[in-house]
């Protein structure tokens, strides 16, 4: 390989090798970055990162499904009785304890990710023993009017997506 003389101090050649190596490493990093970043979500996918939903026409007691980031989102316009029933449940009865208040921003609007927390099927809306609740036909998980799991193999409550109310009639998911 290179000169095998043992120098006491680093010489000019060592500096040149080190500098070239450093430049090469930096260059390799710059060259590699686009090859790695191209796999990150592209502009089309990022544009679909939020979904605006008009909720003006959802009747009381009605639950609507919209698509957000490839997932089904349940938007439920809850009646007063459903809200009361959900809030009356003692937390000790729940497998995944959570208050109904903590799961909504406005009590009449419950917005959930419609994917069963057992193995990923989409549960049926307004189904099962709880009014305004959900039932998953794959393995029989039951969710109440707050989307909390009550019976069946599912370990957790139906998940909550991030959302904001743009106005009284428009909600932005994501």
């Amino acid at each position, binding site marked *: 390989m290179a*000169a095998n*003389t043992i120098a006491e101090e680093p010489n*000019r050649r060592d500096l040149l090798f080190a500098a070239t190596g450093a430049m090469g490493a930096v260059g390799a990093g710059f060259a590699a970055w686009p090859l790695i*970043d191209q796999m990150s979500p592209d*502009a089309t996918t990022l544009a679909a990162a939020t979904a605006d939903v008009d909720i003006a026409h959802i009747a009381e007691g009605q639950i609507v499904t919209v698509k957000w980031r490839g997932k089904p989102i349940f938007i439920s316009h809850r009646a007063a009785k459903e809200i009361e029933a959900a809030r009356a449940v003692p937390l000790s009865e729940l497998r995944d304890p959570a208050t109904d208040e903590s799961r909504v921003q406005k009590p009449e609007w419950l917005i959930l990710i419609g994917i069963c927390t057992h193995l990923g099927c989409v549960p049926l809306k307004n189904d099962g023993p709880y009014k305004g609740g959900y039932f998953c036909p794959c393995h029989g998980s039951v969710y109440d009017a707050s989307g909390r799991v009550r019976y069946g193999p599912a370990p957790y409550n139906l998940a909550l997506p991030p959302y904001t109310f743009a106005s009284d009639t428009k909600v932005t998911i994501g």
Partner: protein
Amino acid sequence: MRAESTYVPKSRLAKWLESRLPVGGLIHSSFVVFPNPRNLNYWWTFGGILSFMLAAQIVTGVVLAMHYTPQSSLAFASIEHIMRDVNYGWLLRYAHANGASMFFLALYIHMFRGMYYGSYKAPREVLWLFGVILFLLAIATAFTGYVLPWGQMSFWGATVITSLFSAIPWVGDSITTWLWGGYAVDNATLNRFFSLHYLLPFMIAGVVVLHIWALHVHGSNNPAGVEKKTAKDTLPFHPYFTVKDGFALVCFLAFFAWFVFYVPNYLSNADNYIEANPLLTPVHIVPEWYYLPFYAILRSIPSKLGGTAAMFAAVVIIAFLPWLDTSKVKSAAYRPLYQIFFWLFVACAVLLGYMGSQPPEGGYVIAARVLTVYYFLYFLVILPLLGRFEKPRPLPPTICDAVLGKRGQAAAADANPLQAHEPGQ
């Protein structure tokens, strides 16, 4: 294989691996200590450049394939999606498209080097044949790749070239239908071209391994065309030729980068930014620049079968060089008459390329025909005769003599200057 390896693995892990699969030793003997003639010039750096470009095309290609859709109604849009939406998609697409042009540029220089210095002569005939196979594979790869964007040139270039097969008597039409998977170039054709375009570069990689294996049997040729005799004639591949190849690669990449970042569409045809329309043929169908000389030869013969045969023959005849060139002297440096005909051939190839880019009318047709005649005359008449009638210059006895000329061997010094008696500096 060679004699005992000089590779001594240092770490325990290296020793463990070496006794089970001697990869370290193989890399060491092939790319570290392998002896290369000390008089190699920069025309010898293009093999390394080609290896890099193959890797670059495979990497950019695999990554592009993550975003491309090989379906006729979606392909064109998926390319624009890559250009506009995919992170750095524009860079990957331009690198891949211009990379193909750079690949052929390096390939042609590499081939012309072989022709000038007689690298195809004994005992390197098989090396040369592997090279011709690589050339054919590269042509097929670039052809199938160009169809994928499904622009007007993609579609009509594919139609023209696949239609050539119908020139074959008796079975021509059946073969063409079989190639198309239908009655014209369509989705079926696009799908199979995508599959083949993904496959062929890996075939190329395999033949490159064979090519390097064949090279390493006798080692590289050199500008003097005189085989190495002693260790004094050579230098170890590392660091001399790794650094030289590395420097040449950097210069080549600078040239490549200029195209990718400043004039990325200069080498391509504007019509390919129009989506394919099977009912409307562009006024001028022009292939990519690296096919132009062969395209000119195709068009200069007024018969469909004749033109097709001439075009294929123009590529295949390169394989016969070791036997067509009868001169025992390898390098053109010692063949003054050959040099003239060689440069005329280079000019002929370039001019044929120009003819291929022009409409086949008037003076262009006549010129293309004259150039086609010279092209075949060079291989079939001039080279065989030159060997017999040319008076070559006297050859130097060794590579060392070629390098040092009149100063003689005394100053030839050590086989490896870096291991000489110089202190640290």
